[in-house]
C-alpha cells in the first residue's frame, strides 16, 4: 500500500494502531483529516508514516462504528473541511484500546528488555 518512498527511518503503522492514534488525536478536540495526519506525524516526532488513503478509510470505518462523528465546517484558514470529533462511545473505546496497547507494549518490553537471559542461553 505504501507508495511513498521510504528513504528515512519512519516506520509503517501496525495494523490496528491507526484507529487508536486517531481516537487519541481527536481527544484534544474536533479536527479534519489533514490535521489528524499532521498531528500524528508531529506528535510521534515524525517516526510514524501515515498513509493518507488508509487514514481516510479508517476515519470512515470509525464513523460507521459511531465512535466518531463528522460534519463539514470551515478551517482556521477559511478552507472547507470535514471535521471529526469523538463520540462518548469513541471515548470508551479509546480508554479500552489504550489499556490494551499499554499491556501489549509492557509485555513486549518485558521480553525485549530481558536481553541478559537471551544471551545466556545462546
Amino acid at each position, binding site marked *: *500500500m*505504501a*507508495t*511513498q518512498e521510504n528513504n528515512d527511518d519512519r516506520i509503517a503503522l501496525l495494523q490496528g494502531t491507526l484507529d487508536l492514534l486517531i481516537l487519541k488525536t481527536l481527544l484534544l478536540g474536533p479536527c*479534519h*483529516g*489533514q*490535521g489528524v*495526519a*499532521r498531528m500524528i506525524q508531529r506528535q510521534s516526532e515524525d517516526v510514524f508514516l501515515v*498513509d*493518507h*488513503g*488508509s487514514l*481516510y*478509510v479508517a476515519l*470512515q*470505518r470509525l464513523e*460507521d462504528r459511531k465512535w466518531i462523528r463528522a460534519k463539514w465546517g470551515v*478551517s482556521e*484558514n477559511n*478552507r*472547507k*473541511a*470535514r471535521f471529526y470529533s469523538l463520540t462518548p462511545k469513541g471515548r470508551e473505546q479509546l480508554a479500552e484500546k489504550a489499556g490494551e496497547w499499554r499491556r501489549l507494549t509492557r509485555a513486549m518490553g518485558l521480553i525485549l528488555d530481558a536481553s541478559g537471559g537471551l544471551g545466556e542461553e545462546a
Partner: protein
Amino acid sequence: MFRRKRTAEDFAAEIEAHLELEADELRGEGLSADEAQRKARREFGNVRAAQERFYLRGRWVALDKLLRDLRFGLRSLRQSPGFAATAILTLALGIGANTAVFSVMNAVLLRSLPVSDPDRLVYLRTSNPPRGTGTIDSNETFSYPVYDALRHEGRGLSPVIAYVPLSGSKVAVRYGAQPEEAEGDMVSGAFFSGLGVNLPLGRGFSDDDESNHAPLAVLSYNYWTRRFARDPAVLGKTFYVSGVPMTIVGVAAQGFEGVEGGGSTDFWIPLQNRRELNAWGNPPQDGKLFMTDSTWWCMRVIGRLAPGVSREQALAQLQPVFQTAAYVGLGGSPMEGEKRPVLSLADAKSFPGYDAMYGNPLRMLMAMVGLVLLIALANVVMLLMARNAARQREFSVRQALGAGRGELLRQLLTESLILVTAGGALAWGFALMATRLLGRWAQIETSLAPDRTVLLFTLGVLAFAGLLFGLAPLRVALKGRAELALKTSAATSNMDAGKSRTGRIIVALQMAMCVVLLVGGGLLVRTLRNLETTPLGMNVDGLVVFGVKPNIPSLAEGRAFYVNLLGKLRALPGVESATVMEERPGSWWSDNGDMQVDGKLPDVADGASRTVRSNVVGPDVFRTLGVPVLAGRDFADSDTAASPHVGIINEEFAKRFLSGLNPLGHTIGSDDGRYTMTIVGLVKNHRYRSIDEEPIPMAWYEYAQIPMVGSMHVEMRVHGDPLSILPAARKAVQQLDPNLPLIRPMTQREQFETTIAQQVLFARLAGFFGFLAVVLVATGLYGTLAYRVSLRTAEIGVRMAVGARRGQVVWMILKDSLVLTVAGVVIGVPLAMVVARALTSSLYGVKALDGMSYALAVMGLAVVALVASAVPAGRAASVDPMRALRTE
C-alpha cells in the same frame, strides 16, 4: 444497510479539501504554490486507491457482488437464449401444473370448513333409517322429530344444527322484477352462531327466528358479490323465495358457502313451515310438510361438541335420545326383527362429500403432475449439466485466473436463481389460470383461489429446484481444474463430461416415467371415449330440458297447470313434442324403492335386489325421449285422473319380475299396495341416472293419476338448435305465472354429460399431462443426444477419416438412444402396471392391463426417441472429417 450514508463524491471532496489544506500548510512552510501542491499530492499517495477502498467499504459488499453475479448470470443466459427459454418454460409448466393441482387439492381436501374451531364440529350419521321411512340419504339425513329431540335433550352437543335444501337443485327467487334461480337452504336458528360463521354485514338468525319461521334471508358472500355487486343497501330489501317475501338481514363471511361439498349455497332462510317452502321442494305428502311428517328423514344435522365433552361421551349421551326419537310417528318401537338404527358422529373438519367425489382422482392427478415435475426438473438439470460441461473451459480459465470455488458456486447458484425466479413467476401465472379452468371443468363451485398453503408449497418446490440446479452442475464445473485450461483442444477438455453416466441414467428414468404417464393417460382417454360413445338408448339430439316449480295450492290446480303448460309448449313453432317428468334423466337423481307386482312384493333369489327405480311422467314421454316402445303404448293425453291407472315398465323389470310372461295387463303398485296400476307398455332399457350405469328395473307412473303433484322438469323435442326454443318457452311459462324462472335449462345431452364430467376432466388432464411428459422427455433426450454428438464431433471425424460410413455413424448415435429407450421401457412397464391397477376404479370399458394401451405407450416412446435422435444423428452424419479434425 442498503443505503450508503456517504456518497463517493463527498469522500472525493474531503480528499480534495485535504490536499488544499496540506498545500496551504506547505506554502506556510515556505514552498512555492506549485511545489506545495505537488508535494501534497505526493504525500497523500494514490487518491484513486483510497477512493476505491472507500467505495468497497461503504457499500454492502455481498449485495454488490450479488448484483454483479446477477448481471453476469443474465448476460451469460442471454448468450444462450434457447437454453434459457427451454429451461424456464419447462420449469413453468412443471411447477405450474403442480401448483394448480395442489391448489385444487388444498381447497377441496385439505382446507378446513371456514368456521371457528372446526375440530369440535361433527356430522350426525345413522347406520340406517327405521323401516317405514323415506329418506334423502339413508345414512346422512334425519327426521324433524329426531332433530327436535336431539336439540332439546342432547346435552352432548351444543348446539345441534339442522339444515335442509329448499330443492335438489335451485329454487325460484326474485329480487326486483326478473325471476331467477338460486341455491338456498333452510337452517336452524343456531346455524351461524353455532358454526361460528361471521357476518361482515347485518346479522344471522336466532332461535326465535327459527321457532317463528321468520321471513328472513342471509346471502352468501359469493352470491352477494355476483348478484348484488356487494351493495350494502340490500339489507332490509325484500327477496322472494318461491314467491314468499323474505327480508335480507345479513351477508355471511367470505368463503363460507355452506357445509356441503360440491355446491355453493347462495342464501339461507330459517326453517319454514309452509307449503311453498317444503324441504327439497317436495309437495306435501298426505298434507304433511317436513316438520310434521315424522317418517320423512330429510334433514342434515351437524353439531358442536359441548365444552369439555369428548366425542365418545357425547355419543353415549345422544344414543338413547336418538333411538327413541327415531320411532316417533312409527308406533314408538321397531317392528319385529328390526334393529334400532345406531347414531354415529363423523368428522366435520372439511367438506364431507368432497373426499368421496374428488379424493381419488385428485390424488392420482397429484401423483401424475409430481411425475411431470420430476421429469421437468431432471430435464433442466441435464440441460444445465450439458451447458456447464460445455463451459468447462470457461470455468477452468476463471479458476486459473484466481476465481475461488466459492465464486464459481455463487455464480452457478445465481444463474439457477434467475432461472427459478423466472420459471416460478411464470408458473404462478400459469397455475392461476389452470386452477380457474380446473374449477370450471370439475364444476367445483368452492373458491379455489390459492392461499398461503399453496404459496408455501410452490415456494418450497422452487427452493428445492433452485438448490438442485445450483449444486448438480457444480461437480462438473469443479472437475474442470485450472490446469485443464492449458489443454488447448476443446475436444480433449470436454472428454470427461462426454462420458457422464448420470445423464444416461436420468434419461432412462425419464423414459420410464413417460411410459407410466402414457399408459395412465391412454387408459383414461380410452375410458373417456367409451363413455362418450356409450349408447344411451334414447335419442338426445334435439332434446331440451328445464325445470319449473309452480305454486300449487291443490292437486287439481297443479294438474291443470301442467296440462295448460304442455298445451302452450306444444303449440310453439318448431316443437315436435313435449312432456313433463318429476326427475330429469342424467341428473344422478332417482327415486328407488320396492314395488308390488300382482298384489305382492316379487320373490327374488337370495341376495338379489328388489329395488325398482321409478319416475313420474307425462304423456308422450317415450316418443319425446326417443325411447323405443317394444310392446303396448306410450302414455297419452287420454290418461287422466278419471281414467284407469296405467304404468309402463322397462325390459329389465319384465325380465326380473315377470320373467317369461307377457307383461302387459299385469298390475304393479307402490310397496304398501295403496296405489296400483296396470302395465300398458314395455320400453327398451335406456340410461337413466347417468351414462355409466348398469340396467336396473324401472317403472313409470302417469303424473295426472297419482295423488301428488309438485315441481317438474319439462322435456321438449324441437327442430334445430334445442336451446333456441328457450326464450319462447320462458314466455309461455311466465304467461301462466310471472314468478317462474326456467330452472337449469340445458340440452339433454349436456345433462347426461354432467354425469361423466369428472371422468372427462380427469381423462383430459391425464391426457394432457401424458402429452406434456412426452414433450419434456423429447426435449430432454434431444438435448442430451445433441450435446453428446457435439462433444464427439472430433471422434466422429476420426472414425470417418479412417473409413466409417455415414450409416455406421448414424447407427452409433441411434443405438445410444435405443439402449436408453429399452431401459426406460423395461423399468416403465411394470411401474405402469402398478399404477394402472390403482386406476381401476376410474376406468370404464377398458381393463387395467389393456395390451393396446401399453403397446401404444411403448410405441409412442419409441417414436419420441427416434424423432429426438434424428436431428443429432443427422448432424453426426454430416460431420466433415477434415473440418472435425482441423478443429483439433
